[in-house]
């Protein structure tokens, strides 16, 4: 068990910067997910912690030791890989005991530890099998057993569930959480699947373009995203964004206005992007549940996506039926909103509807920088000072 500390870690390849001045403080025994889109530098960050890649600048500290120049084997870390990476020429027992044998543990100790580790991941009776005789889930368990058998200080997982089928992935997710409780080890988990990140981690580190965007508990990332990227990345389907201008008494967009006391905002920017999640948009006549409904917005339904437990409704604000877009594109386009409604709602494609937004769930971002200005404008309009105004987050910096 140990804390992990990255101090100004930068990894530069010939022409690209994979990781840019990453500062990360991971506490002892914490389960932290590094999430971000493909190629954002999360795997490179992981590799610098493991020692497989040497950072161009900055230091990595595990426990109290500066491990920046230590080879992977001397760092007290173990790792589970996306492609599982079991040694195909060894049976399960030899795979699990590989690290112990290299460290010249005596036979009985190895036996005992392998038995213990295989019990934890429920691999009884498979120790003499070859890796290629196992199913994907079993292979992944062997890989996890191989990682825990050495009792590492830090447990690194690089998208360990990415190659498993959907059902197994959900199952392994809960097993990993159980494992974390059982082992009480620091776990750093890389994934591009925000559902995994939301469900498993103590804190999520959102990374984009090699820079740390926010590191906070999952619900904080969800409810109070530090910037527009985090807001769009966390949550599925993703948040709707509408660009507008800040006026004296609120926000004006091309299609609707929102009234609030804009003087309460700590910003000098005029170009503001409003963000609201699909589940925080309501049909006007069903909006009783919301305590602070916004001004009514007229819209036209475009495409319906019944999901079973809810229906996603694509709303066109300018009335024109736009060409089909994916949900991500729709939520990013200023003249479209994505709304989720109850499955028993009576709604048809191509009809006019009046919708309201939940004022307490509206986020405001500076359009230019993407930084969050306020989360919830309900309090602002009441002139109360309790509005949850986002602290001035310095870009890429640590935010707790």
């Amino acid at each position, binding site marked *: 068990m140990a804390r992990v500390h990255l101090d100004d870690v930068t990894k530069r390849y010939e022409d690209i910067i994979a990781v840019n001045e990453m500062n990360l403080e991971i506490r002892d025994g914490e389960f932290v997910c590094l999430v971000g889109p493909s190629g954002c530098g999360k795997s490179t960050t992981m590799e610098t912690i*493991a020692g*497989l890649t040497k950072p161009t600048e900055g230091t990595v500290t595990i426990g109290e030791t500066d491990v920046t120049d230590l080879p*992977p084997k001397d760092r007290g870390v*173990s790792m589970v*890989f996306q492609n599982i990476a079991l*040694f195909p*020429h060894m049976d399960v027992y030899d795979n699990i005991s590989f690290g112990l044998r*290299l460290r010249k543990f005596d036979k009985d100790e190895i036996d005992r530890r392998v038995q213990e580790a295989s019990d934890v991941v429920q691999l009884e009776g498979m120790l003499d099998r070859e890796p290629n005789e196992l199913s994907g889930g079993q292979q992944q368990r062997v890989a996890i057993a191989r990682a825990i058998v050495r009792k590492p200080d830090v447990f*690194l997982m690089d998208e360990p569930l990415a190659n498993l089928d959907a059902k197994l992935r959900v199952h392994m997710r809960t097993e990993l959480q159980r494992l974390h409780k059982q082992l009480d080890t620091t776990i750093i988990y890389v994934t591009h699947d925000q559902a995994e990140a939301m469900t498993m981690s103590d804190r999520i580190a959102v990374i984009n373009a090699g820079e740390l965007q926010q590191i906070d508990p999952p619900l904080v990332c969800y409810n109070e995203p530090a910037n527009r990227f985090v807001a769009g990345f966390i949550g599925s389907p993703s948040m709707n964004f509408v660009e507008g201008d800040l006026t004296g008494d609120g926000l004006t967009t091309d299609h609707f206005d929102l009234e609030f006391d804009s003087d309460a905002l700590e910003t000098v920017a005029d170009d503001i992007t409003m963000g609201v999640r699909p589940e925080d948009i309501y049909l006007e006549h069903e909006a009783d549940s919301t305590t602070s409904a916004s001004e009514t917005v007229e819209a036209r339904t475009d495409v319906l996506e019944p999901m079973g437990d809810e229906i996603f409704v694509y709303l066109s604000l300018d009335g024109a039926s736009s060409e089909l877009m994916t949900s991500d594109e729709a939520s990013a386009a200023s003249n479209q909103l994505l709304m989720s409604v109850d499955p028993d709602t009576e709604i048809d494609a191509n009809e006019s509807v009046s919708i309201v937004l939940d004022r307490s769930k509206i986020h405001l971002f500076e359009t230019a920088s993407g930084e969050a200005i306020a989360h919830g404008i309900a309090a602002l309009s009441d002139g109360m000072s309790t509005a949850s105004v986002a602290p001035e987050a310095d870009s890429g910096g640590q935010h707790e």
Partner: protein
Amino acid sequence: MGTEPDPAQTADDEMGPLERWTHGVVNDQEKRNRLYKALFYVAAAFFLVTTLFPFYWLLVLALTPSVRQADWNVSIPLLGEVPFPTPQGFNVHAFVEVFQQVPFHLYVFNSFVLATTTTIIVLLLASLAGYVFGRLEFPGRGLMMLAILAVSYFPPAAFLIPLFDAFLGNAVVVPFLGIELFEPPRLVNTPGSMIMPFSALFLPLSIFILTTFYAQIPDGLEDAARVEGTTRLGALFRVIMPLSAPGVATAAVLTFIAVYNEYFFSSIMALNNQPEQWSPLVGGILSYQTQYTTDFNLMAAASIVGVLPMLIIVVVAQEKIVSGLTEGALKE
């Protein structure tokens, strides 16, 4: 007829026998398969005859006492007398005489030691080089590979005279300038004078084989080994090399056979054709030839004896290669 003639309708009697046969092969799957099968057997038989006939000849030569070796003619009906080697006796004693006349086992031992040592050196160095070329990115990699390729095409004879000069213990001198670099030890008549040039000559081929094999091992496996506790070198020998067993076996067998059969360099580096001076197997075989006599039966018997260890090794290695290929299916 105004309509196009149906090819199937074309009367059989209009076609010649060859045309009918080709027509059948082209249109009939059954006939085509029969043809393929026949062609396969012809090719296989040709290959077997060309490779096995020399062995047959060696066996016949070895078993026939030398006094009777003039009479090889076989009478075949129609062709008459045709020269063809057939056993003219059963002189198993030749295989014993091989060792009585010349210490042949020492020559075999020499070649075996030379081949084994060279193979080990080549595998070790080629593994390191293969790892670097196959798994690391660095500027100038292509150029260096090209240089190795170029060197591998140098004729070995080009190295012979300078190497012989140096191995005799003469000082190595920079050409034209006359600057003496160093005085090498006298290596002629020792295995060193043969193993060094063999290793250098056979290294490029092994480097190429191992580079391609090592490059195919997924990065994740090496990373896993390193995180688990090996160095890069440890990962090479514990994970990458075992997983490339077919490639390693191929490189080893090729190197071993080449050195085991080698005569050109070793006949010159061993100043006399004596087993004490590390003269190789082929030297041993040639030593049955004296100024006045040539014991063909002994030479043939010696050749067979010399081939045996090779045969055993290839059979064993082949099993490894086949098992490596079938088990292989490298899944990460």
